[in-house]
């Protein structure tokens, strides 16, 4: 498998605080990679660096063989921010049509299909301001999916969704990956980790684990990913992260 995203020795300072301390990882093409870690661990900062909107202190981020944020990548990388970044004073449909218009060769029909796919078909004519939190998140997700990106960066896309919809959304991520799209999904809940092909666990701006869920379970001798991660964190981050990487 070729790498869609390659992060090398990434250091990012926001203000005086160093958020990422020399992080390196690779994300294989056509996979669903879970970016897990507690709130404030640097997940969003890493994602922002991958889409190229984050000022980088040192290190490199390469996406599809080009430096992150390159002009050519803008048509190929879809990004859903943690807070719904869509226009509250437009309807779901108007938002979708607008974001579709930013990409070449997309019609309004394509946009409507994506709105339907995230389960908002019945709410397409509603103002985003009048939607529930979960619906807003899905509308925002629809706008990230619209450009048919080759790399999809989703910051906590399933927060606040009901279990059935969450399952459907994961189905969509899996289908996108099967089509060759590289999907990176961040989450702070471990119950979603098992659905990923690979997991990146970060804590305090450092990589604690970078492996498949199965390998992490095996390395820590537990079946439950939550306890596996606890185990990894408690038994000294550096040593086990290194061994987890070696087994990969």
């Amino acid at each position: 498998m070729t790498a869609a995203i390659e992060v090398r020795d990434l250091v990012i300072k926001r203000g005086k605080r160093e958020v990422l301390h020399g992080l390196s990882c690779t994300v294989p093409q056509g996979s669903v990679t879970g970016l897990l870690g507690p709130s404030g661990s640097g997940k969003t900062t890493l994602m922002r660096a991958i889409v190229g909107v984050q000022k980088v202190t040192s290190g490199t981020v390469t996406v599809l063989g080009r430096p992150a944020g390159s002009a050519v990548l803008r048509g190929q990388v879809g990004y859903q921010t943690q807070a719904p970044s869509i226009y509250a004073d437009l309807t779901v449909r108007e938002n979708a049509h607008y974001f579709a218009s930013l990409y070449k060769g997309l019609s309004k029909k394509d946009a409507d299909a994506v709105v339907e796919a995230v389960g908002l078909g019945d709410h397409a004519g509603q103002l985003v301001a009048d939607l529930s939190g979960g619906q807003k998140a899905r509308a925002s997700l629809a706008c990230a999916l619209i450009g048919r990106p080759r790399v999809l960066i989703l910051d906590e896309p399933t927060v606040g969704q009901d279990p059935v919809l969450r399952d459907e959304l994961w189905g969509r991520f899996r289908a996108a990956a099967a089509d060759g799209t590289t999907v990176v999904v961040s989450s702070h809940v471990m119950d979603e980790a098992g659905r990923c092909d690979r997991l990146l666990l970060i804590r305090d701006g450092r990589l604690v684990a970078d492996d498949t869920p199965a390998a992490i379970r095996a390395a820590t001798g537990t079946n439950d990913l939550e306890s596996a991660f606890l185990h990894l964190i408690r038994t000294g981050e550096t040593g086990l992260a290194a061994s987890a990487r070696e087994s990969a």
Partner: protein
Amino acid sequence: MSSRILGSTIRRILGQLRHDRRTIALLLVVPPLLLTLLSFMFEDTPRTFQGIALTMLGIFPFVIMFLITSIAMLRERTTGTLERLLTTPMGKLDLLFGYGIAFGVAAAVQAGIASGVAYLFLDLQTQGNAGLVIAIAAANAVLGVALGLFCSAFARTEFQAVQFMPVVVIPQLLLCGLFVDRENMAGWLQAISNVLPMTYSVEALGEVGRHADPTSTLWTDLGIVVGCVVVALTLAAATLRRRTP
């Protein structure tokens, strides 16, 4: 820049405005009401009213569009839509010109209605063409938009953004020749007035009031206002950073 993206951005911004009925009502109704108030205030001195009303037709769109744009752009920044747009193929100029054109159109409609009321019901008379008044008002509105786009970069909250209005607007209002003729100002005040763009749009409106045909002063003034728009848009473009800390 792409005409497809620019076009859809203009439609999107006007669409947001269209959903906001109250803002539309305020945009269209407030200037005629204030002009009517002025006409009552200067009932006994109609000449004074003529001068002030004409100046006001240029000032309203500037002030209102400055405010609306700084808030709209601040919202783009705070809700994350700006960050998202900058990860798409959209160019910075698509966004800036989108705002300039969309709000410029809205301002032209506003100026058309305000001028219509002033000419038809409030006895406003100008030697020159009313169309020129509307054109100058629209240019002023676009100047307001451009400065609003720029200033929004320095505000983190709506509270701060509205505070830029007195900073940017009131000095121009005081020194443009509306309160004191520019000839009667102290030299250093005149010098400040010379570098403020509203001075030129007010002078241009005065030219339309006094002369039947567009004068060269009018064209120069309009050129200066357009030049200021270009400068403000360039500064605004410099504040749109794809990468933020």
